[in-house]
């Protein structure tokens, strides 16, 4: 048994920032992560950090742009906190030595980004996330904060009161990947989940193999609702074979999209007569898929992104990294041939429901970063707003967990008197209902009122034994592939009721098949087979919430498009979707969006650029 005041799960941008803040507030802090910190997926972020640093810019403009970009589904108190804190937290990184790009006068550079009314994206080359991650890890080393790396957190230890709002998180159960040993970690003050995105729920994603929604699934099963999970951002230019991202910068510099007939389809077929290739991400992604559906796709799968006309000099000067990516990951030379691209899952706007202090409805349980939903991104995240979220809300969660007084939050969490129940009829029962409730299938993530941690450790050890002892059955990779294909086939850029219901049926099949899952590798040394088998269970839970959200929200807002109702419906849908596990029998409810800021109300307007 290990014991610390604050435990941070995950070591990307949000986790490292939370750990530093908790440590600075005086808490004995430790990080537990399935990866060594520098391997975290924050390192893949390219664009930058939005922060109103310059004279002429203003946090209020940043807040306004973010509310508009969210298609009015973000909560104003969260957005204003982000915009107010981002400048100071960005400057803090500079003082920690982060190598930002510079102007001639030595100040940090800022550049324009989509949806911003002022060039406020602070950056470090096209590798901003890499530098942010390494700079914060350096500060963790400097402070001597303990890191349990390559420890996989399997579940939370939470008390089991009937109402999740009354529950308390006492710690976590993790296993040491190197040795297979399962241990409890007691958290005296709080557990902060910073486990990143759930991109592996999809077949084609820009996310790392490690982005399996572990934190989402653990918090969900422990009783914290998942919020706005249907809002998934698809990036229009990812490489077909790997999902590696080709930056928007290519189109920004003049790159052109062509279909198989060599037509510049964005104009030719009227998808975006004004902005063409530079229309917003969701518009371009839908256009590409339309082309393929109309039989004008290349190899019936993708379209071409051509930058050859820009000339070798300009490409080498501004887009050198893109040449490397296309060459290394697709075997294509961008100087002599067009690059194949198609939409790829990129970012989850939704996540674990938290307030401005990072706290869930469960006492002592926090979440920050992509796994959390405060909500600052609402229906659509602006480029350059993910990294400031990590540092602003990572810091707040760490400080609050360590006992700092950050004031009363305005955002409410958990089921309460301000929510509205959903009554949509579901095609199949979600969650664990009707299934054998053995832990491998339907653990609620909660234990008894006393000794929750000890019981959780016993339960997880039994779970490992069961998976390892089982001799035959189905292997996780088969279930994972089926799940990912279903999500990409039916809960992708284009969504309709029939497709989403089909996805829910397949997810249900995956859940049933998972009852028969076994781990073939008999070793306790670095057993990635076991780890991935547990991750796949988490993916099933998370994918189901994405599909449930997509099914009930019958409108078109931000990244969520529904065939049956292709308009934003403010009359009925200015509200967050919440899915609650309810000990295996999930329910859906809604909480109104907060559009009232400190001094003004953000009235929904048409989102046009």
């Amino acid at each position, binding site marked *: 048994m290990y014991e610390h005041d604050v435990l941070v799960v995950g070591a990307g941008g949000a986790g490292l920032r939370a750990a530093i803040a908790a440590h600075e507030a005086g808490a004995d802090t430790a990080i537990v992560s399935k*990866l060594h910190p520098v391997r975290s997926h924050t390192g893949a972020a390219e664009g930058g950090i939005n922060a109103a*640093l310059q004279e002429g810019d203003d946090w209020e403009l940043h807040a306004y742009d973010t509310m508009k970009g969210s298609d009015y589904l973000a909560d104003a108190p969260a957005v204003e906190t982000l915009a107010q804190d981002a400048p100071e937290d960005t400057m803090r990184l500079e003082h920690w*030595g982060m190598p*930002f790009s510079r102007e*001639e006068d030595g100040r940090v550079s800022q550049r324009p980004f989509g949806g911003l009314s002022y060039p406020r994206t602070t950056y470090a080359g096209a590798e901003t996330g890499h530098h942010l991650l390494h700079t914060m890890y350096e500060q963790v080393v400097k402070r001597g904060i303990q890191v349990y790396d390559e420890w996989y957190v399997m579940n939370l230890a939470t008390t089991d009161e009937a109402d999740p709002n009354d529950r308390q998180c006492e710690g976590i159960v993790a296993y040491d990947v*190197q040795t297979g040993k399962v241990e409890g970690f007691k958290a005296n003050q709080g557990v902060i989940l910073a486990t990143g995105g759930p991109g592996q729920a999809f077949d084609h994603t820009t996310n*790392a193999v490690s982005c399996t929604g572990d934190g989402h699934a653990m918090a969900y099963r422990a009783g914290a609702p998942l919020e706005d999970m249907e809002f998934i951002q698809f990036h229009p230019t990812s490489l077909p074979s790997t999902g590696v991202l080709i930056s928007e910068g290519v189109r920004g510099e003049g790159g052109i999209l062509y279909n198989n007939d060599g037509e510049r389809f964005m104009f030719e077929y009227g998808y975006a007569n004004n902005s063409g290739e530079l229309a917003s991400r969701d518009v371009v992604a839908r256009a590409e898929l339309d082309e393929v559906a109309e039989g004008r796709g290349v190899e019936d799968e993708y379209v071409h992104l051509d930058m050859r006309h820009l000339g070798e000099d300009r490409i080498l000067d501004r887009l050198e990294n893109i040449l490397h990516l296309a060459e290394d990951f*697709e075997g294509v030379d961008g100087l002599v041939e067009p690059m194949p691209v198609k939409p790829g899952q990129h970012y989850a706007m939704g996540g674990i429901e938290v307030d401005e202090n990072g706290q869930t409805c469960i006492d002592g349980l926090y979440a920050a970063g992509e796994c959390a939903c405060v909500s600052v991104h609402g229906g659509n995240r602006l480029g350059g707003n993910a990294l400031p979220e990590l540092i602003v809300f990572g810091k707040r969660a760490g400080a609050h967990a360590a006992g700092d007084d950050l004031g009363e939050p305005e955002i409410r969490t958990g089921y309460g008197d301000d929510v509205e129940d959903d009554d949509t009829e579901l095609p199949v029962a979600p969650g664990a209902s009707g299934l054998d409730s053995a832990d491998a299938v339907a653990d609620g993530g909660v234990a008894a009122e006393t000794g929750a941690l000890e019981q959780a450790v016993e339960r997880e050890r039994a779970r490992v034994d069961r998976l390892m002892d089982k001799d035959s059955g189905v292997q996780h990779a088969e279930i994972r592939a089926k799940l990912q294909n279903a999500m990409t086939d039916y809960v992708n850029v284009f969504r309709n009721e029939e497709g989403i219901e089909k996805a829910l049926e397949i997810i249900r099949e995956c859940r049933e098949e998972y009852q028969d899952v076994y781990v*073939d590798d008999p070793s306790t040394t670095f057993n990635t087979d076991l780890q991935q088998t547990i991750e796949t269970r988490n993916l099933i839970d998370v994918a189901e919430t994405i599909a449930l959200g997509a099914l009930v929200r019958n409108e078109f807002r931000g990244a969520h498009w529904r065939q049956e109702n292709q308009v934003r419906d403010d009359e009925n849908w200015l509200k967050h979707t919440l899915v609650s596990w309810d000990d295996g029998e999930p329910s859906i409810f809604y909480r109104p969006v907060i559009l009232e800021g400190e001094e003004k109300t953000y009235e929904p307007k048409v989102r046009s650029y």
Partner: protein
Amino acid sequence: MSTQQQEPESQESPQDPEMKGAESPQQRRLKEKQEGMVDEHAEDEAEAAGETVHIKVFRYDPEVADKQEPRFDDFHVPFEKGMTVLDAVMYARDEFDSSLTFRHSCRQAVCGSDAFFVNGSQMLGCKTQLSELEQPVRIEPLPHQEVVKDLVVDMDHFYDQMHAVEPYFQDEDTPAASDLEEQRQTPENREKIKMSSRCIWCGACMSSCNIAAGDNEYLGPAAINKAYKFAMDDRESEEIKEHRLRILEQEHGVWRCQTQFSCTEVCPKDIPLTEHIQELKREAVKKNLKFW
């Protein structure tokens, strides 16, 4: 072979009393593998030549009887244009043998997890096109590091060396919350440290270095490069720079480098490691620091 030099330290035999239940299926599988009853090899099946890639992957597991003696397994993986070494081992794992073990995460050469020894050279699996390699493609763990299992090596020593150079900004002069003024840095100085800041801690350089192989205390190219990033950053004071050079010029520091350029050759991020080490030697001389 370099990868076989380690003695597994903590062997856990199937008879270990801690592994309860003598007849458990897990133990039976262990026994079967020991007796060779399970066909671990995905033999060349129906696919015609040219449509598959033949890879030979190093296997070792201190616990599994027939993997205690390191061996190579052959896999024949269907080839697709653009396929990388990482794609091939992932396919082999997901389709043929789920116990095949390797680190990987981002698949785009930024997390630094999947440095392997491929056809006799250190490279990132995700960044290496199969079409550029001679077959069969031989995939081994990084040499000069203890093998934990299959392609996974123990990175602790690498991390220790990285931490030994005090890899963090030393300046304690963090401004008050109300003071948003940044430290100024010229674009030229930022450019100066740019390449050094691209390191992804993959360990390829350390594994390729003969000096590091013979001197376990040698800081190695990655750690020295990390120190270079700080030493050359004008935002830190001259005093701190001198402190950094003192760490670097000690017995197992920069003077150990014999400029063989092996680190520079294998670096997947094209960092001029040897040049950085040479420049630090010159800086140490300029500062009249004693050298070995």
